[in-house]
């Protein structure tokens, strides 16, 4: 066991429930490093929704809420408002965040409440058996779209940015070093932080959409599809089909944070 795992993970929950080669484990691994580097373990409060990625926070020995499907962000908002000193991190999946809880997601982004939402996007409802998700690519074959998906997928980072999130970034599970830097920056950022992690799902998305269940191959595919911000600016729209931009997509400072605004609006008690 890695020394970091020894320090932060609930031993009785090991080994992790994820399938071999799942990108969720990489995110947990990188998150542990971010927590170690920032030294914020005592202030941490984690919220997880339903889905494979919703299990992530339950492995840490910190305060954890594991809540209803799609309702991770409302619970996290309540937690942040009752104790604004907490560093609240939400682990959610694509189906959980924009499928079932899409409404909650845009409203939390609009309020600019200080949450760090880490959305792990595998492009499918993996845990429930491989149904089509709002992020499934066009023509992707899943259990509920056997002739190819006809609905264009969500660009969730664009959605977060336009809804009012003040820190938006996207990386993949194949970029752990960059992801670590982004998670650290995101936790420090005072405002709604949205980090999308494109991850491989060998069991469902890999097998049915990509046609391979080899985790290494899927990881190479992710790396091939990731286009950096600089290259994306020069690329023509034709070159970008089937690819996605990675990097820090949006960073706005100076907007008032919601929990701070609420506490500021209370009438001040006279001391003494």
């Amino acid at each position, binding site marked *: *066991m890695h020394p970091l795992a020894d320090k932060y993970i609930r031993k009785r929950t090991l080994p992790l429930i994820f399938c071999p080669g799942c990108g969720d484990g990489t995110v947990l691994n990188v998150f*542990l490093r971010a927590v170690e580097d920032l030294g914020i373990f005592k202030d941490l409060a984690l919220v997880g929704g339903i889905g494979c990625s919703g299990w992530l926070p339950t492995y840490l020995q910190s305060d954890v809420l594991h809540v209803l499907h799609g309702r991770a962000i409302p619970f996290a908002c309540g937690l942040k408002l009752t104790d604004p000193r907490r560093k609240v991190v939400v682990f959610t999946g694509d189906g959980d965040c924009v499928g079932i809880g899409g409404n909650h997601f845009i409203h939390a982004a609009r309020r600019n409440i200080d949450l760090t939402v880490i959305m792990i996007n595998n492009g499918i409802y993996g845990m429930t058996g491989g149904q089509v998700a709002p992020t499934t690519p066009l023509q992707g074959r899943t259990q509920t779209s056997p002739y190819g998906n006809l609905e264009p997928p969500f660009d969730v980072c664009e959605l977060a940015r336009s809804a009012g999130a003040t820190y938006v970034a996207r990386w993949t599970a194949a970029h752990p070093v960059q992801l670590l830097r982004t998670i650290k920056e995101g936790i420090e950022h005072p405002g709604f932080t949205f980090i999308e992690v494109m991850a491989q799902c060998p069991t469902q998305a890999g097998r049915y959409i990509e046609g391979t269940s080899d*985790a*290494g191959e899927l*990881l190479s595919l992710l790396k091939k599809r990731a286009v950096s911000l600089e290259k994306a600016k020069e690329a023509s729209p034709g070159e970008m089909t089937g690819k996605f931009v990675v990097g820090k997509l949006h960073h706005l400072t100076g907007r008032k944070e919601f929990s701070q605004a609420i506490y500021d609006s209370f009438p001040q008690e006279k001391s003494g």
Partner: protein
Amino acid sequence: MTASPRKKAVKEIIIDEQFCKGCNLCLVVCPRKVFSGSNKRSRAGYSMPQTTDAGKCSFCLLCEMICPDLAITVIEENP
């Protein structure tokens, strides 16, 4: 992050057989090809990778960070 090569030497690369699920992501990400497949089975019955030449390791820690089961530990020679 610095561009200069790291001068750390690696003493040992441990792969925990209790947690390894044999996904072989470490084989894919290692730039120096330190790992290779083996016939050894982990506790759960998956084929585990092995370190063939730890001396080639450049201490980039990509394998440690990519490992979804936190099974890999790279130990430095003289920390």
